[in-house]
Structures are given as structure tokens and as C-alpha cells.
């Protein structure tokens, strides 16, 4: 149902765009294709990686590592991966969905996604050059704290 609405909206938007401006619509399609092509290597790799993970780690192991009962240690592990890695959202969500289906906890998945999006250890040097050392550090630390708090709340509400 939701997917159908998505398709409907996209097609409608494209039609309106086409009627209003053909050149811009061509640009829209080009940008859409480029962004897709951009992340295709990571998507293919992560899908295969998910295949491996789900084949070799059974649900029991995953839920022991990242399940709701893994508590703080599971959350710390998920947060560490989220802070350090640079995974695009289009790749992270399928991974998160597979882990959830295989027994990971909501709080653990939420903190993985939130830290992935808001905290960037790998890009910290760049951020420092852009905004100054203290501001960049403060933004990342505050983001981490907020990610911990919101993810705990997600965990409580979802369970």
C-alpha cells in the first residue's frame, strides 16, 4: 500500500514536472539515476553481506549479540559501529531490517541508525576544519548522548 502511494506520488510529480519544464525533468531523471548508480556498489555488497550474515549467524546468536536482552552492551556495540562507519541510509535500512527480523532489539537498531546518521568519527577532521575543533567535538558528543536517550525511548515504546 505504502509502496503504491510512493509510486503514485513519484509518477504524478514527474508528470507535473514534465508539463512544466521538459529540460528540468530530464535533469530530474539524470539526478535520480546518478544517485542510484552512486550507491549501487554498496547496495549490492551489503545485500550479499546480509546473505552471509543470516546464513552463518542464526537468530539465536544475533539476538544474543544485539537482541533486546543484550541491553547496554548490545547498544554500545551498535552505537560503536554506527559512530565509526560511513554507511549510506539506503544501505543501512535493509541491513537494520534484516537484523530486526533475525532477532535484534529495537533500541539496538535505533541507536545504530541514529548514530550512523548524526555522529561521524570518520568525518570529524573535516567537520573540525569547517566549524572549528570545539564546535565539531561538541556537536558529535551531544548527538551521541541524544542518540542514546532517544533510542532507549524507542526501545521502551516498541517493546
Amino acid at each position: 500500500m505504502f509502496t503504491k502511494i510512493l509510486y503514485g506520488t513519484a509518477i504524478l510529480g514527474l508528470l507535473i514536472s514534465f508539463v512544466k519544464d521538459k529540460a528540468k525533468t530530464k535533469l530530474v531523471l539524470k539526478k535520480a539515476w546518478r544517485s542510484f548508480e552512486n550507491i549501487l556498489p554498496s547496495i549490492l555488497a551489503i545485500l550479499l553481506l546480509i546473505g552471509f550474515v543470516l546464513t552463518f549467524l542464526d537468530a539465536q546468536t544475533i539476538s544474543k549479540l544485539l537482541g533486546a536482552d543484550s541491553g547496554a552492551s548490545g547498544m554500545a556495540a551498535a552505537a560503536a559501529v554506527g559512530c565509526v562507519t560511513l554507511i549510506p541510509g539506503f544501505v543501512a535500512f535493509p541491513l537494520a531490517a534484516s537484523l530486526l527480523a533475525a532477532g535484534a532489539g529495537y533500541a539496538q537498531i535505533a541507536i545504530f541508525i541514529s548514530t550512523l546518521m548524526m555522529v561521524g568519527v570518520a568525518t570529524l577532521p573535516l567537520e573540525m576544519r569547517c566549524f572549528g575543533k570545539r564546535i565539531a567535538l561538541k556537536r558529535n558528543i551531544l548527538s551521541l548522548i541524544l542518540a542514546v536517550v532517544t533510542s532507549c525511548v524507542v526501545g521502551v515504546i516498541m517493546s
Partner: protein
Amino acid sequence: MSKCKKIVKRYLFFLLLLLLNALLLIVEPKLGREVISLSLDNLLEMLSIIPPIFLLLGLMDVWVPKETIMKFMGKDAGIKGGLLAFVLGSFSSGPLYASFPVAMVFLKKGVSLANIFIFLGAWSTTKVPMMLFEITQLGSRFALIRFGLNVTAIIVLAVVMEKTTTKKDAETMYELASRQSGED
């Protein structure tokens, strides 16, 4: 030749995994086949969801007038400026680090610190195509709860950042931005 090399380089990790899978198929055919069938299922599901999301992403990128919105986010913009910063961040595309140069341009144009952090927060967490994709992958309940909490978190972060940033740090920030060459 160099183009071919480039493609191989981009897909290197994927190709290595494929190779690993080929080895697995030889050593443990049953496990190897399971990896393939799991991956293919996921791939087909993704390909059925992803086209409209990328079309919407392209539409937003081309049709949302960033320059005009930016003009309304100055120091005295108040709530309206914050809202605009939020919308602008949410309707953008690209990883968080791509937002830093944009934020610097905003700083140069006199956008307030709180609005800068609202913009960064929105860019990182509430991007519309990402939200849509999150709903398809993790369900609307999870996605919407996370969205609501994150909007709160973004506002808290922006307020705390603005209130705790010393004058000296703020000056450093605006100065770094003003030294940034290139687009203006």
C-alpha cells in the same frame, strides 16, 4: 581500460564477496546456495521499492529553490527561520559531510547558529526520501517514533549548541566560513 579499472574499483568489495561466495559454493554448496537465495530475495524486494524514492529525490533536488529559502534564515528570522532550516535540510540529499560546505555558505550569509544546527540535524536525520525508505524497510511505527524523537533531539541540540557556544567559538566558526573560497 581506465574506465574498466574504475568500475572494478568501485565494485571491489562486492566482487570480493562474490568470489567468497563462489568458494563457498564449491566447499559447502548448500550454504552457498542459501546465501545466494537470501541475497536475491532482498535484492528483488529492494528493486521494487527503490525507483520512486530516487525519482522523488531527483524531483526535490531540481525543484526546491534553495537560494530563496536561504534568504529567510537570517539572525532575526525566529521560529520561521528555524522551520525553513528544518525544511531545507530535510529536502536535501547526500551524506552529512556534504552538508558542511553548505552550512558554511549559510554562515557566511549570516544565518544564526541555532538554525545552522537545525539544518545539520535535519540533513542528517529527517531527509524525506530516507524517511520514506525507512518506513518501507522498518515499518511506519518504528520510523515515525524515531522521527518524532529525532525532531525533539534536533531542537534540543540546536538550543544547547547556541546557548553554550562562547563568543570566541562562534567567531571562529564565522571566520572559517568567511575564509572559505568558492561559491557565494
